[in-house]
């Protein structure tokens, strides 16, 4: 129910000027009986940072794996640079940072980068990759000797060393401290300024807000809201009104200040940034209005889940 409401408030994708560099169209992905993605449309515009924001298990990693050709969709189409991503040629222009537990620990940082660079047609010079990832002083260390944050930077280095046009970063800043996170944000911004396209997944609204040109909220395998960070934040800043009313959803939708409206059984659910104004208007139009309830966070279904997961994660780290 809430998902429909969010979609109703989203800006149409066709307004975007930049041509998409990769996209999912009507993509579903099942793992056995689990539906990881349900009929998802996702456009990645060239030269932008797109954040896929959602809680753990929302389907973010599945979307990344589909774009990398690591998984094949159960239904729908996936295209990267116009081609099916299961063709290895497409991968020469993609750099990926996946969530991995560990990588071989007995190779040095520069050896890992040297090997990965050799896979790509026109890689960055080693010194350049080391500089961007902030690893110059650590280049002779064995991977196993690095701290968690430093390991994360090596994975980032492996993603960028091939000088790819498209970067897919799956939870790139998980486990990083505040300073390291900001440093990686700066590097990602810098890469986009130099013409790269970035898709990053995150479960931090703050991270999506700080980095992304566009945010797509994903939950339980479905796209929820999408828009600029300002639009997404505006939604979270609003209130949710629940009531029982004889007014139709169309009538309510026409009231100034209503973002979206939906029926939930006998209840009507309204999201608004100006709840007081909307309630006054509702009461003046429907004298029989009952059971009014106002709650904060219009996107609570998506974002309460987000915050909860974030807190759990941080609790584990501490």
């Amino acid at each position, binding site marked *: 129910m809430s998902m429909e409401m969010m979609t109703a408030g989203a800006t149409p994708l066709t307004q975007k000027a930049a041509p998409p560099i990769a996209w999912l169209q009507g993509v579903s992905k099942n793992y056995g009986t689990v539906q990881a993605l349900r009929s998802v449309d996702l456009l990645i515009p060239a030269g932008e940072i797109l954040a896929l924001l959602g809680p753990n298990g929302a389907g973010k990693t599945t979307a990344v794996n589909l774009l990398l050709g690591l998984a094949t969709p159960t239904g729908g189409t996936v295209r990267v*640079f116009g081609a099916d991503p299961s063709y290895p040629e497409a991968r020469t222009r993609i750099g990926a940072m996946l969530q991995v537990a560990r990588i071989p620990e007995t190779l040095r940082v520069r050896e890992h980068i040297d090997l990965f660079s050799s896979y790509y*047609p026109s890689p960055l010079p080693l010194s350049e990759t080391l500089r961007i990832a902030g690893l110059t002083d650590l280049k002779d260390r064995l991977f196993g000797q690095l701290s968690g944050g430093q390991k994360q930077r090596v994975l980032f280095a492996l993603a960028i060393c091939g000088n790819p046009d498209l970067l897919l970063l799956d939870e790139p800043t998980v486990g990083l401290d505040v300073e390291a996170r900001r440093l990686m944000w700066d590097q990602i911004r810098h890469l986009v300024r130099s013409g790269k396209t970035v898709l990053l997944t995150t479960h931090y609204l703050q991270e999506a807000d700080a980095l992304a040109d566009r945010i797509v909220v994903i939950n339980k395998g479905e796209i929820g809201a999408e828009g600029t960070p300002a639009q997404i934040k505006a939604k979270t800043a609003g209130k949710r009104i629940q009531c029982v009313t004889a007014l139709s959803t169309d009538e309510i939708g026409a009231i100034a200040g209503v973002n979206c409206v939906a029926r939930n059984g006998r209840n009507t659910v309204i999201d608004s940034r100006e709840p007081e104004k909307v309630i006054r208007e509702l009461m003046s139009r429907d004298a029989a209005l009952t059971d009014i309830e106002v709650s904060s966070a219009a996107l609570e279904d998506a974002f309460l889940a987000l915050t909860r997961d974030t807190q759990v994660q941080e609790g584990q780290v501490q």
Partner: protein
Amino acid sequence: MATTTSVSSLASHATPPRYRVYLKEAKYDFLKMIRMPAYALPTILFPVMFYVLFGILLASRQPGHSVQMSTYLLATYGAFGVIGAALFSFGVGVATERGQGWLQVKRASPMPPTAYFFAKVVTCMIFSLVIAACLILLGVFFGNVHITATMAASLSLVLVLGSIPFCAIGLAIGYLAGPNSAVAVVNLIYLPAGFCSGLWIPLEFLPHFLQRVAYQLPPYHLGRLALATVGYAHGGHILLHVAELVFTTIAALVIARIAYQRDAGKLYG
């Protein structure tokens, strides 16, 4: 950026010379393994230790038999050693790297998948050569083993090439076993199979029913080929043993392929 959306521009990126990727992959796979004491030490030291104990120290107490025994066990412990190098490198290596998600990162890159396996085979062959050289030197200098340079060379060659079927078996184990159970699975296969195939002590000393089991085991066939290079050419035609090992390789690769596809389908996140 407009050009980046067209498929044709993919062709404009010249692919780097493939052989360099293969060489680098092999170089770093070898470095990775040699720096891993948990792999490198037992892989080389176990066959060496067993050969010194059984093939040199114990054999020297059997007057008249010592030379024969030292030479015989040189071949069979050589086979035992390279089988271990292959099973652990592939079985444990692939299972671990798969479990850690490292194989995913590799698959997401433009690395040709064959480079990964090529590198592991090369690593395994280098370890096999080191094992063969250690045992031959020990046998010649301390075990009174008299073999010609040609025999030593052909024994080394048989051991190095003979590790390939066991790389294939290891690969199948690597995709079938979990990252935590792979070591146990490999040991449960490796040690009994080595013993029953007459690689620890000559087959003739084993009970009859075990001798019959041996004929069904791939390590037995590699043992026979190794023995043939040092002058013990009994126990069936050489081509028979070669055919058995080729069949083993193909069967193991088919199983590995099926297990790989099952694994790729399970990928979840």
